[in-house]
């Protein structure tokens, strides 16, 4: 029976985890003593943060792991209410296994400051019955009092050999034919995000068991439409209103955030048909707007300000 690969190949025991060796060794030692501190895992997407804590849960609780962990994704439920209610209710009762329960807060860096403040008390108050494991891309967005209560582990992006190992393993199991060129392409496109590698591979395999780099690129461009380029071209030719309409449509339909858009914009600037001096100015504007987006309230207004610069510096 076919399954979603990124789950099918998720490691269940410590020895199956690829990469992050120093961290895995330390955690393994702690698990053997059944003594886990609060933890903060920091690192880019798809390098094994969730996998590691799930392995920990399997090791600690065996078959009853699901009753003993609470998995929340902060980017979906980032309000203070969740911390006050759901987390507190879970944390206050003891586990039957005698080992403290684990509350996994994924993407904790998108929790609001207020929610983090609320969390800080909960962590302390119920640390006998529950340990927290916070997963984040950037530790700078986690308030200091929380960082100081956690053992911090910094996950590194997987290196080429580790990625190769993962890809070959899937290829063997799923009877895929995949050459070195295609592996290189996957490595580059995924930026080391293993979940993305599984997703791309599984999409490709729904078309052909022979994975070529052309197929990979086609699959990726299909998922990331080149709409951004068209939007910028509209702006450069002076049609602000049309470009902003298209932008809104793209953001909604592809579910892209302002930051996602601005990353693509920055890459596309150099491809535009305008004077080089102006490209440079636009890069500067892009940086400025990305900064303002972090500080501001409404991403779309920031993007409109950026688009108007393309109109200004266009043809």
């Amino acid at each position, binding site marked *: 029976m076919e399954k979603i690969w990124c*789950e099918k190949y998720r490691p269940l025991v410590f020895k199956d985890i690829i990469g992050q060796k120093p961290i895995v060794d330390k955690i393994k030692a702690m698990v053997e003593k059944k003594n886990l501190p609060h933890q903060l895992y920091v690192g880019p997407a798809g390098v094994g943060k969730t996998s590691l804590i799930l392995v920990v849960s399997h090791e600690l609780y065996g078959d009853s792991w699901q009753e003993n962990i609470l998995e929340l994704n902060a980017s979906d439920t980032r309000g203070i209410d969740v911390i006050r209610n759901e987390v507190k209710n879970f944390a206050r009762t003891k586990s039957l296994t005698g080992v403290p329960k684990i509350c996994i807060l994924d993407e904790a860096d998108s929790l609001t400051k207020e929610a983090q403040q609320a969390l800080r008390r909960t962590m302390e108050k119920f640390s006998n019955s529950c340990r927290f494991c916070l997963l984040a891309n950037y530790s700078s967005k986690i308030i200091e009092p929380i960082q100081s209560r956690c053992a911090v582990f910094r996950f590194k992006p997987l290196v080429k050999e580790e990625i190769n190992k993962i890809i070959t393993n899937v290829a063997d199991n799923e009877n895929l034919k995949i050459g070195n060129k295609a592996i290189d392409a996957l490595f580059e496109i995924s930026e080391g995000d293993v979940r993305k590698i599984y997703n791309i591979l599984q999409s490709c395999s729904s078309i052909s068991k022979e994975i070529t780099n052309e197929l990979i690129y086609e699959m990726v461009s299909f998922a990331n439409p080149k709409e951004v380029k068209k939007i910028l071209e509209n702006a450069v030719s002076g049609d602000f209103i049309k470009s902003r309409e298209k932008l809104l449509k793209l953001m*909604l339909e592809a579910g892209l955030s302002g930051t996602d858009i601005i990353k693509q914009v920055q890459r596309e600037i150099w491809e535009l048909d305008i004077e080089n001096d102006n490209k440079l100015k636009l890069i500067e504007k892009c940086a400025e707007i990305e900064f303002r987006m972090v500080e501001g309230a409404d991403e779309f207004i920031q993007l409109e300000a950026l688009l108007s610069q393309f109109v200004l510096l266009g043809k």
Partner: protein
Amino acid sequence: MNFVDKYKPKSTKDILGQDIGLNQLRLNLKKPVFIYGPPGTGKTATIHALANDMNYEIIELNASDFRNKDEIDSIVGNSIKQKSLFNKGKIILVDELDGISGKEDRGGVQALLVLIQESTFPVIMVANDPWNSRFSQLRMKSKMIDFKKLNYLTIFNILTKICKSENIKISDKDLRELSIKSDGDVRAAINDLEIVSYNNNLEGIGERERETSIFNAIQLILKSNNPKEVLNILDRVNMDLNDCILWLEENIALEYKNKHDLARAYDILSKADVYRGRITKWQHWRFLVYIYDLISAGIAVSKKNKYYGFTKYRKPARILEIWKFNQKNKLKKDISIKIAKKVHTSIKHVKKDFLFYKRFINKDIIKELNLSEEEAEFLKN
């Protein structure tokens, strides 16, 4: 009797400067009508004059009566379904609709919707600002009639007539000044005239803080080059900051055709947005004054050109687009929630990579994810 009551128009013949509005009202009496416009433009007066001409009786409801359906029934009662004793026709006039409060009078608008459907007599609603979202259903079901500010010459003529009949000696120059100062509000002008008539002196007549519609505010900001003129205009709009920003965001691009002006104006808006973010992060409300300065005077002076002529401003479309999209894509969200749970990641993340998942989700995985038939169907397209 004060002048305003004394010189109230008795017949539609006495109504000056609202020909278009009056005609539209005459033509549309069969359906629910929603008249809107700034204060003192003759909205209520026109309705009374018209009823007088047609020998209709007016049943007047104040907005505060509209708390729920029972209360309406107790006021209007069965009279909406039968002719009056003297066999007169009736007009049901709902005045000062702006007064319906969003929270406390919940149900008021609903009750009104029922009324306009059931009533056998014409229902006329009146408000200064009809663009509030709580009136959206009423707007859809009614004929909207716009009563514009009166031209100052019209007001001047009205005042001259009153002066003549009251035998007031006042120079044309002063009369003209009164008319201009009234800013299209004939009731204000007549009130001012009455005060002036005591001592024939214009001094000491205070300016009125006027509430203004968002359309007027936007127009002033986008057309004016004088920062002082627009500085406090948004204070007078009955709309919160976020909505004001959305309106500006939508309409700057429609007015500022010069690309330098366009870029400067959106830059100002973007800076204002940064301060808005800082307020929510740090609760530093002092920044609010800078935001208001930026989005009023800032946007006004960011243009170096003058834009003459009529520009058709629009309601902000973005929020509506997002809402429509979410309705349409509810299934995508539901599916994403199920996938996210399965693969231990965020819904946001799944949505971003949705096209990958969509491609490889087959019968087995549909079963594993426990997708409904409807959801499975959605993935096929």
